[in-house]
């Protein structure tokens, strides 16, 4: 199932950069909600939506509370089998 939704690390990075309206070269695992002005309430919803689409099981309140940095998003994607390769 998840193979249909999964994405590579680079695909995830690209999609998050698009949501945050950032140049891809600027997005690193250090990028966080506090360090990027475009990571606003609307961007937070887009990130939830992206990961909810990609995740086979339901994402929870606890999960969304952790989406505060790109590193945390990558970790979530890895733990939930979203990342391919």
């Amino acid at each position: 199932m998840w193979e249909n939704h999964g994405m590579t690390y680079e695909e995830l990075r690209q999609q998050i950069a698009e949501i945050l309206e950032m140049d891809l070269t600027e997005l690193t695992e250090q990028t966080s909600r506090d360090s990027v002005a475009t990571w606003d309430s609307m961007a937070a919803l887009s990130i939830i939506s992206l990961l909810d689409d990609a995740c086979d099981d339901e994402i929870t309140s606890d999960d969304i509370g952790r989406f505060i940095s790109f590193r945390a998003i990558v970790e979530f994607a890895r733990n939930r089998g979203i990342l391919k390769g």
Partner: protein
Amino acid sequence: MHMHKAVISALASYLPERVLTNKDLAAQFGTWTAEQIFEKTGIRSRHRAGPDECASDLAVKAAQKLIDSGRLDPQEVDYLLFCTQAPDHYLPTTACLIQDRLKLPRSCGALDFNLGCSGYVYGLSLAKGLIESSQARCVLLLTAETYSKYINSKDRSVCTVFGDGAAATVLRAAEGAAGLDQFIFGSDGRGGRNLIVQTGGMRCQRTEETAQESTDADGNVRSANDLYMNGREIFLFAIQAVPVTINSLLEKAGLGRDDIDFFVFHQATRYMLDELVRKCKLPPDRVPYAFEMVGNTVSSTIPLVLEDLILSGRIKTGHRLMLVGFGVGYSWAGGIVRW
């Protein structure tokens, strides 16, 4: 036994005169321009009740429109349902006061029910129960909300989204294919804390301490006496609950997506609606929006869309609609209506 169905036979809305525009909000907050507020929310303006204007006043004016235009004879109403989260008093029941103001018969049943964004669909289902069990022939369903009275004007997260408004819907017993068909419901109190006015009820009464304001991480100012909404949690709830509701209701009704002419959703925000359309793979032309000039009017969003469909002539006899309300509680419900 003679079978009859509950049908929506008339509908009207009322919006208070005062209007809060994006220009007003931009001047107040100074962070986004009026156009940016529109781009983010899809809303250009929202109505605000006056200081002495209650939800019941808006509801009475919506009902009065039906009476004045000859679409409702007050004497025929034998049940009044009033949906609000802003009643006039703790007691008496606001619906009883409305019975007197609208000069409905004293033989009329009247009750309030406290629901938000799911309230209209619950109201239709209650009316169906009353009519199809022959307890009533004509039900007046009033939905009215004045969230503005709970909103801290320095809280951008809710100030921009919610608008005050009311709708009056008449349901009558009729024969034929038209009418209210299947309904499904859902409740999950675990989400109660995510859209809440903490104080003012018996659990937590208002004190000087509860009136103390604080500023959250996004710069929004509110106290425990004000409306609080955790937008991320509400969004997560909606994108998970609504698709399941749509599928379960279609299954219960033995219908496919193509059998539905209009999917009428609670008008939460434009982004939420866009996401639901995308996630549920619905044809956008069958998902009407009506919030640009009114915002999220809580329990009246769905009847405002219906009124828009009626006035624009888009809705025709024989059309099948799916109505889905979802939000505060958490509470949600879906219903199929044959026009």
